């Protein structure tokens, strides 16, 4: 049904008043229906227009190739990159810890043998040692010196490996920079989306944040008043609670 113009509306309204004054129920119904239908038809037209606009906006948005690329390729890539960071750092930590496990017994053995030889040596210096015992000591010293050379070489090698294992920092740092770049790009695109969708809705309620939710390491802890910066702060806070 076509929307009525102002004259037609006035005519329909007067006809309705007439009908009411004359208590003509059938005509009241007919005139009321005519007015309402006209009104609804205008509303439907408006909704149709809005739907068309929304459809076009979504289509335009879809043809933005970069956005399609972001959702299809970059987002899954980013997940992989972040998993890579976890994997690489885990490997590096295990590698370093492994070399520490290999090195500690070497250092301990050197220390213990040296302490034992030193004790014997002091007895020799104090002239408390028999000739037989001194011959034994000489043999022990002779056997110890090549072991020192060998262990020191191995310790050096292990320390070099530990240094090499720290290369993960370079690799993961680069990957994380890429992720930061992508996050910035997604942000820019989301701002565009908000503009396409019209005025952003003003949110009435503040976002509810659970203060106990685990967040992992805090970035920029210095700028967050509810975050402690080190173990001393933790200890102070706990002792202020009578802990």
């Amino acid at each position: 049904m076509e929307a009525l113009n102002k004259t037609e509306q006035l005519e329909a309204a007067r006809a309705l008043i007439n009908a009411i004054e004359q208590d003509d129920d059938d005509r009241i119904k007919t005139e009321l229906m005519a007015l309402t239908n006209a009104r609804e038809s205008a509303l439907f037209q408006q909704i149709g227009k809005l739907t068309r606009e929304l459809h076009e906006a979504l289509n335009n948005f879809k043809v933005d190739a970069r956005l399609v690329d972001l959702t299809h390729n970059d987002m899954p890539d980013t997940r992989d990159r972040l998993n890579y960071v976890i994997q690489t750092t885990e490997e590096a930590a295990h590698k370093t810890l492994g070399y520490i496990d290999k090195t500690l017994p070497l250092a301990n053995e050197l220390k213990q043998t040296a302490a034992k030889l030193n004790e014997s040596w002091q007895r020799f210096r104090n002239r408390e040692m028999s000739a037989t015992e001194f011959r034994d000591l000489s043999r022990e010293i002779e056997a110890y010196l090549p072991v020192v050379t060998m262990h020191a070489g191995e310790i050096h090698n292990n320390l070099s490996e530990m240094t090499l294992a720290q290369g993960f920092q370079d690799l993961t740092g680069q990957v994380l920079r890429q992720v930061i770049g992508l996050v910035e790009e997604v942000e820019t695109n989301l701002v565009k989306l908000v503009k396409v969708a019209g005025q952003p809705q003003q949110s009435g309620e503040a976002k509810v944040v659970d203060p106990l939710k685990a967040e992992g390491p805090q970035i920029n802890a210095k700028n967050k008043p509810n975050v402690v910066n080190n173990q001393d702060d933790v200890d102070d806070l706990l002792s202020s609670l009578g802990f």
Partner: protein
Amino acid sequence: MKILIVDDFSTMRRIIKNLLRDLGFNNTIEADDGLTALPILNAGGIDFLVTDWNMPGMQGIDLLKTVRADPKLSTLPVLMVTAETKREQIIEAAQAGVNGYIVKPFTAATLKEKIEKIFERINAQ
């Protein structure tokens, strides 16, 4: 003295295990979150619990609360070693009955100090 170490990162469990070994605690066992830690605790024989906060499954704070609510486990000493550094969280852990709270990254000296302090308190009781 048998110690249960709970952390979702195997590297951190290994670091804590090595540090405890240097402190003379050779008997350690590991779990990767609260849900895997509970059966080990319930099986008995654990004398000390070291736990992270942020873990999948059951978080450390919930593990602490569960331990305190269980009559069999309620007196078990619990040391939290975590990257969670918000004041609300530290207060929550204290109120839930944690015995010590260490923030990551931490040093061997801090771990030694906190463990000694916990034992001093227990022995003084």
